[in-house]
């Protein structure tokens, strides 16, 4: 079972919920859960490790294959630049320029070069590290500073982390664009964490469209900082028939222990029950 924890709006509590759910399942595993794994897919601003303090293995370097043009064989025909949809190649007077940061690593230029003058060379864009938190498996990725493309790091972080008998929790990045999609794709269920404010509602709508309408994945909502703001989120969930699976109250002690990197299951132990019930309802929805 793969559960992706997403939100649309940033800072609504994705990491809080993902970490809390993984720990609740780890401490009191339901009969069908043989293992628990958490992958932090927010490779631009990864924070789950601050709460879980995993023992990590060596960093894997994530590389994109980018073109390298052999000047001896290149006839400056321009076919490579013509097929590149990302404008990552440009033919100037006497050579082909490669803009690595625009390249998506699709390999099209290499395939079409009539002279076989292009080879692909690795270009580092970030890292992935894997490890453990007790018996929980953990992975996260880091996009290198100044690099634009996050999705290949998300894909690599997820790779090999799922086993059929276990639960894999994905902590997704905010937004509703490609990094968020990459973190929801392949999930059995998407938990949308929001807050009961107009900003929370506005961005929940976008995330719901991605998860439910574009990807066709069943969804449920977690309302964090319940009680602040208004009832717009509640009414929206009712209208859209999206179940509200958990409410996390707004309390200063929660904000304070969040600030110190303390998982919410430690600060509010009674939430463990709520998180396990949430898992039960997710399982029913997926079955």
């Amino acid at each position: 079972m793969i559960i992706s924890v997403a939100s649309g709006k940033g800072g609504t509590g994705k990491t809080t919920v993902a970490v809390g759910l993984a720990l609740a399942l780890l401490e009191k595993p339901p009969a069908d859960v043989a293992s628990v794994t958490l992958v932090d897919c927010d490779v631009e601003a990864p924070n789950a490790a601050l709460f879980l303090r995993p023992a990590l293995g060596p960093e894997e370097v994530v590389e994109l294959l980018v073109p390298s043009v052999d000047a001896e064989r290149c006839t400056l025909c321009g076919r490579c630049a013509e097929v590149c949809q990302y404008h990552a190649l440009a033919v100037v007077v006497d050579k082909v320029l490669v803009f690595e940061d625009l390249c998506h690593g699709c390999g099209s230029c290499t395939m079409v070069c009539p002279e076989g003058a292009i080879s692909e060379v690795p270009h580092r864009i970030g890292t992935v590290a894997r490890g453990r938190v007790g018996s929980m498996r953990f992975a996260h990725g880091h996009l290198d500073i100044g690099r634009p493309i996050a999705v290949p790091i998300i894909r690599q972080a997820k790779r090999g982390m799922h086993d059929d008998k276990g639960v894999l929790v994905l902590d997704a990045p905010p937004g509703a664009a490609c990094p968020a999609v990459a973190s929801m794709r392949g999930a059995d269920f998407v938990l949308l964490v929001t807050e009961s404010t107009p900003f929370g509602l506005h961005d929940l709508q976008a995330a719901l469209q991605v998860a439910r309408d574009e990807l066709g994945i069943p969804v449920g909502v977690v309302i964090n900082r319940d009680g602040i703001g208004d009832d717009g989120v509640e009414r929206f969930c009712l209208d859209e028939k999206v179940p509200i699976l958990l409410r996390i109250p707004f309390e200063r002690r929660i904000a304070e222990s969040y600030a110190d990197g303390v998982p919410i299951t430690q600060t509010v132990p009674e939430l463990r029950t709520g998180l396990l019930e949430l898992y039960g309802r997710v399982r029913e929805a997926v079955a």
Partner: protein
Amino acid sequence: MKQILILSGKGGTGKTTVAAGLAHLASGTASLVLADADVDASNLELVLHPQLEETTPFEGGVKAVIDPDLCTACGRCAEVCRFEAVLAGDEAYAVDPVACEGCAACYYQCPVEAIAMNPTQAGEWYRSRTPWGVLFHARLFPGEENSGKLVTTVKQNANLWAIREKADYMLVDGPPGIGCPVIAATAGTHLALLVTEPSMSGLHDLERILGTVAHFQVEAAVVVNKWDLKPSRAAEIEAFCRDRGVSLIGRIPYDDAVTRAMVSGEPVTAVTDGPVTAELWRIWRAVADILAD
């Protein structure tokens, strides 16, 4: 004309609250053009009373479509696709439009020319009038690519407008993270205002966004939101800024007026004269001072 960009690394630290508050305060003494560069979660419009004046479709990129009548199911497309976007079939292959990155590798490799690259509308962008300046904003359709390109479109149009109208400042509400839309948003920026919060996550992500703007040689200043929620973590951020030689120009206290303002659809500075508004005033004066140098 000076460009100010509000960023944070971590989401939900209060970028939009700061942007709307500064827009409201600064527009009293200066002429502003506003832009929301968070195109997949654009919230500035929710508190600035925009009156829509112009909508323009945004063509994102192209996506592959396989004609099932021409496809011979040879599988070459699936072989060359590196984005797991081609779905195999017995009689014809198909493309998952959500996964397709529009690279066209399959289009060029298909031996029977069964693949077309179709342009897609990935969103739209808007020009609106607000009481505090003209606002350029956008909506990336959910799940679409090219958020960076849409950010660039929004900013270029805002920039042209600002130059033509001889605006004093262009104030840009940025996206979270440090990747493609953030990098697109930094182009042309004179000062990046980094909004963080006193938590381990806030500091961790501040370090990453500070590195990012430094990489692109943009000057930065830091604002700590909800300053008093965790004084020990706030002190850590203060020490971090001192170490890095970056000015910390604002300490916004926690106040539920911020949520009240959001619910009533106003900039926070329009609903309270309390400490949050006073601090946003100080922040604006510090920004104007930095940019006057």
